[in-house]
């Protein structure tokens, strides 16, 4: 359908539209008009993505200015979400008039590991080794030597891509359309072009780019991939409820004993290389020295393939001046690094937990190892330059020294919002010595600030952004619009319940100390057992941590509960092995598709909870076993809480509850995809019954949480579940009855008075 919001013609790929989608678009349009940032909470299951895509693309089509059309950068948390977005985009494009469609190009970008089609590079196991295998075949010096000596292997795909790219305008390499990773690989195979570099090249011309958060937020990656993005971009962070964590992680480094050992090995190897070069090609080192003397820490225009992970500090914070004299010579720089590694080794030998600010740490580095702040700050760029000079291709081997330099650069650059924590062992396993030195960032606003400054509009949206006023404070920005939408429902298609007692009326909770008691474990098991026999198709369970899940599954196995559950449904379990978890998920879906029914046991802060949808028959019920608090004794968390309290006046308890409940809401929110879908959510912990806890859930869940569904015991929950399922099985009127319409047709939208929308 096609309708107008003010002066913009919006193309929407369906015959009907939900009223909240319409409102969402109106707010979005205002944001774009105001060229500001916004924060929108929209319940899952209301077609957020399609509303976003159709409004922004329609907007940019109608506002094609002389500076070129507005570009959409869509950031997802995971690759599988990227695939979903691209599928939605494809659907949207297929409903556009063909003259508009032909001008649009959209693609996803991922790492080499996901895009490479070269069999040699692809045979490498990990991402880093694929990266370095690619480098080994495509680095500029490798290609130069291959031009002289045909025996040097190169990558045919890259060579033919390079020829095509240089011979014609890069903008016409890919015809218009939507390209998922799969499609890019197919195009690459068909034409013999390297899909990765094709994608890297094309994102500068594409109208829509879909990639992962870190391609914008992590300065290391952003500096090579997103550097050339213009201001005329709309940046969307979808599923952004965890965006503060991503920002923090992007600027955090941890150093372990293995890292330091590896770094020492790397330094030895580099010394050998330098000696070799001195003997064979001394001019090269001298050229580098001269270049550094002229103040060019980074070489000008690097070949596309030579670029490596960039500087870990944000672009504005990188010093644009000459490298200090005492690390300009390669040997001197190496000895500085040696001293640093030695110093860090010494710090790791501590027996107590130590927490320090960056300033104090830098001072102690200066006094004990003789390395000043400026040298630390240049560590990364100097290392990068040296590695290019030495023509090192196996970058995966040099990750350790790179980590150390990351660390050095970050502590040299930032004085606020970070702390350095040294722990001799993990508190949960005090008998295993595992010293770790962590530089942790506490301030999410540091990493995201350049994004807000650089791009015209940043849209932060998710199904769970409650409380919505907290995010502007955490991220330190001023949204022009900040709004939380509710869901207009044709029928009560979600059914949240708070379960506090087992059938034997004993309290159930994952409170520390009680969670492993047999009564709790048995009651949790009985709950699952009752539910698998009552609920059809898929059931998803979330536990608070891997270790708790392992423990409880083992107990269930010994009690025979697991066997009983298997009588009703197949059981799949998330493990820490991604391959196995992916296969388990795939099989889970297959089991649900074929009607067999299955249970998926998963972890609330694990990978599955982060982005896998359990909509429709893939999830008719979610059970949240316990409240997913972070591990509260963790030093990093404590340090962050302290920082939040001092800087933003956010109370520790409030933040912890907020964090736990956004996680829980995120887990349970994945059951609904559309209004035709339905699902139940069980919060199984007595602590949810407290008002201060469950009131932090997003509004669209709270509005369905009836008083009768609080403080339930297992048998009551089963009865409610049966009743709910029976009710949902009835046919219903999709358009909504009575005065409230929940499905608008084209005419309805046209009839909507535009002033009425202002009232919201």
């Amino acid at each position, binding site marked *: 359908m096609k309708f107008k919001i003010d002066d913009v013609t919006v193309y929407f790929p369906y015959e009907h539209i939900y009223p909240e989608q319409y409102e969402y678009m109106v707010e979005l349009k205002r944001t774009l008009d105001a060229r500001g940032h916004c924060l929108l909470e929209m319940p899952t299951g209301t077609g957020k993505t399609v509303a976003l895509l159709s409004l922004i693309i329609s907007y940019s089509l109608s506002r094609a200015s002389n500076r070129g059309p507005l570009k959409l950068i869509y950031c997802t948390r995971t690759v599988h979400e990227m695939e979903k977005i691209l599928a939605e985009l494809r659907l949207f494009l297929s409903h556009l008039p063909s003259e508009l469609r032909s001008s649009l190009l959209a693609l996803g970008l991922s790492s080499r590991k996901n895009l490479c089609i070269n069999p040699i590079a692809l045979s490498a196991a990990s991402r880093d080794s694929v990266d370095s295998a690619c480098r080994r075949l495509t680095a500029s010096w490798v290609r130069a030597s291959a031009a002289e000596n045909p025996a040097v292997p190169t990558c045919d795909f890259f060579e033919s891509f390079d020829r095509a790219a240089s011979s014609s305008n890069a903008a016409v390499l890919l015809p218009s359309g939507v390209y998922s990773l799969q499609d890019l690989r197919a195009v690459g195979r068909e034409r013999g072009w390297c899909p990765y570099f094709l994608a890297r090249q094309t994102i500068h011309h594409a109208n829509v780019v879909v990639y992962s958060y870190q391609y914008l937020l992590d300065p290391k990656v952003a500096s090579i991939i997103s550097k050339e993005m213009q201001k005329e971009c709309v940046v969307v962070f979808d599923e952004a409820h965890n965006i503060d964590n991503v920002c923090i992680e992007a600027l955090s480094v941890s150093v372990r004993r293995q890292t330091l050992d590896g770094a020492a090995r790397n330094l030895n190897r580099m010394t050998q290389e330098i000696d070799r070069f001195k003997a064979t090609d001394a001019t090269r080192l001298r050229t580098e020295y001269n270049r550094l003397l002229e103040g060019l820490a980074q070489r000008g225009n690097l070949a596309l393939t030579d670029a490596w992970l960039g500087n870990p500090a944000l672009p504005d914070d990188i010093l644009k001046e000459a490298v200090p004299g005492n690390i300009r010579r390669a040997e001197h720089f190496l000895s500085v690094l040696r001293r640093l590694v030695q110093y860090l080794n010494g710090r790791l030998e501590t027996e107590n937990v130590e927490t320090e600010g960056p300033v104090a740490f830098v001072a102690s580095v200066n006094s004990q190892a003789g390395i000043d702040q400026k040298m630390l700050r240049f560590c990364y760029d100097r290392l990068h330059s040296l590695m290019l000079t030495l023509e090192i291709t196996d970058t995966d081997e040099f990750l350790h020294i790179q980590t150390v330099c990351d660390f050095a650069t970050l502590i040299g650059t930032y004085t606020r919002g970070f702390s350095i924590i040294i722990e001799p062992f993990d508190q949960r396993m005090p008998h295993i010595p595992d010293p770790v030195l962590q530089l942790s960032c506490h301030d999410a606003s540091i990493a995201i600030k350049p994004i807000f400054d650089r791009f015209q509009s940043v849209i932060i949206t998710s199904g769970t952004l409650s409380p919505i006023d907290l995010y502007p404070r955490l991220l330190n920005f001023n949204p022009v619009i900040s709004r939380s939408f509710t869901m207009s429902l044709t029928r009560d298609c979600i059914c949240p319940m708070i379960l506090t007692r087992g059938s034997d009326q004993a309290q159930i909770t994952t409170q520390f100390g009680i969670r492993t008691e047999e009564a709790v474990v048995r009651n949790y098991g009985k709950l699952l057992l009752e539910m698998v026999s009552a609920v059809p198709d898929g059931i998803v369970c979330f536990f608070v941590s891997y270790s708790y899940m392992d423990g409880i599954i083992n107990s269930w196995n010994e009690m025979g509960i697991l066997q009983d559950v298997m009588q009703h449904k197949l059981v799949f379990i998330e493990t820490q092995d991604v391959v196995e978890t992916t296969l388990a998920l795939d099989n889970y879906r297959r089991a649900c598709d074929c009607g067999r029914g299955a249970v998926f046991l998963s972890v609330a802060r694990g990978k599955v909870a982060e982005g896998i949808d359990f909509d429709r028959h893939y999830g008719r019920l979610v059970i949240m076993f316990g409240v997913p608090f972070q591990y509260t004794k963790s030093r990093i968390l404590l340090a962050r809480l302290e920082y939040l309290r001092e800087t933003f006046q956010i109370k520790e308890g409030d933040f912890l509850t907020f964090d736990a409940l956004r996680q829980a809401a995120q887990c349970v929110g994945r059951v609904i995809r*559309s209004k035709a879908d339905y699902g139940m959510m069980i919060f199984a912990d007595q602590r949810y019954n407290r008002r201060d806890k469950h009131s932090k859930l997003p509004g669209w869940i709270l509005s369905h949480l009836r008083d009768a569904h609080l403080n339930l015991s297992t048998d009551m929950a089963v009865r409610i579940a049966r009743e709910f399922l029976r009710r949902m099985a009835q046919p219903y009127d999709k358009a909504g009855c009575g005065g409230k319409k929940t499905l608008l047709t084209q005419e309805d939208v046209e009839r909507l008075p535009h002033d009425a929308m202002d009232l919201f």
Partner: protein
Amino acid sequence: MAVITMLAKYKTTVKEPGIPGVLKMMEDVFSFTPNDPRSAKKLKVDFRNIKGHKFSKDGSKQALLNLTQVPEKGGGYIFEFNNFADRNVCRDFVGKVLGKFQTLTSEQTDQPSSGKVTASEKATASIEQLSTKEMEHRMKLLREDSELQKLHKELVFGNVLTESEFWATRKALLDDDSDRTLKQRTGFKSAMLADIRPSTDGQTNKVTFSLTPEIIHQIFSEKPAVHRAFLNFVPVKMTEKDFWTKYCRAEYLHRTKNSVAAAAEAAEDEELAVFLKHDDILANEARRKIRRVDPTVDMVADFSDDYIHLSVHGILQDGNKETIDSENDFAKRTLAHDVNRHATVVLEGRALDIELRDTRAVAEALARSKEASSVDTSDENANLGRQERAVRMTELEDLQASHSLPYASLCIKDPREYFDFQQVNALKALGGTGSRTIDYSLNTEDAYYYLLQQISEVKLQGVHNPVVQSDTALKVLTGLTQQISSTRYNLGKNPQESVLDRFPKRTKDEIMLHWMSIQELLRHFWSSYPITTAYLYNKVLRLKSAMADIYQKLKAIKDVQSDFRHQISLLIQPMLQSLDAAFAHYDAEEHKHSTKNGARLNGFVQ
């Protein structure tokens, strides 16, 4: 029912001479007493055990009656009678008794054979060759479908249709069903191997494992390494018993989580080590499968796009702390892994068709089926399917316009008018039914005389004044309008509610039954035209009389005074009309034949 006593010979096979004696048949039991009191061949058999009966053709060498028994009770009872008349008396009796059991219990019946008895003589010859299997199948169908059973009872027992005629129209049902029942295979049990848990007797340190072929098959499918080891080692290197002892030992070590002991044992015994080591076949399989995984759940791709969590970088999250000591291959297998593997195997289903008896055979068959499945579909196809699925998954189905084909809704304002109109059309199409057509060629003179006649009649008798009592008329009229309008108002409001549900249950059932019978009869009736053989002529005669019966019954239902009279008549009207059409056709055909063949009475002979 009476008791029948008959002289007969009892024999176990057709060939042998048989023991002469007296056969006595009662309502639920038959007994056979040999003439020779010393003979041990005394029988007393409950009819409930009898599944069916067969008999020799009239006029064949012997007058035989074979009562077949439920298979688990053994063969049947063959009786030879002195003549066919005696036999037929017994045969009919048996048929009735068995038919009665069938209607009583609707289980454990033998309809086809009782149908055979009641069927007309001409048809019997063709049915007798029915195999017992087919009969069982038909019985099963009848048992499963109570409506079919009712219809069968009504038509076949009512002598309207023969057994074969009844089933001839349901060939598809027969074929299709038998195929399906054959191909169903049982899968693996959902439960994990609970039986392989060790059991201890509590006194000694001995631990007992019990393995069945079923369990072994499951072990082979879930643990390819064990399967491979079995194929390699048994029986060349060790006996099967040794193999399983080793396996159980490894399992036990694993179960007790004694990784040190496991490592020690594995170091000494390389065969044992096979069971404890990481399963490389599974790892390869996983690598192969991961390429085809649905991209929307592909977390591996995500993992390899994650530059924040460099292998030595970033904050440790809960659980991400994994100290993998690669030198220790053993005992890394967790319960979660086992559970996932088990569920995968159950989901894949059992590929084997062979009986589980010999372990070696099981192992080899499994290897064969694996080979076959490993060269299956190419990646391209999988990708195509994947993409289609992704598109399907992304659509929001309730925002979509409905996918069904465009149609114009049928709008019948007045059903009666509609059906009457159809009726006239049908009759016109038939043509030749001159008796019904109205002669419009009435000339003015005739009309005048007719009117004159009417007037004179009135003059003679005088006009009743008033013709009808006005208040009575008003009452009747308002009553009628109210009823009609109210039904019109009530009906069609709710799609779930039909007119039928408003009737009393008895009436509803009756109407449904009649409707089904009419459909069946009409199907047979119309398929019998053109009549080419005497057999068909007979059939049509039978059908016509049956239809006439139903016609009368319907009329009776229609005429019953009740609140629903109007709706009932609305419902019944089309049925009656369809029957009328059939009768009209019959009459017309009859008429044609009689005129064509002149005086020849047997008009059907062509």
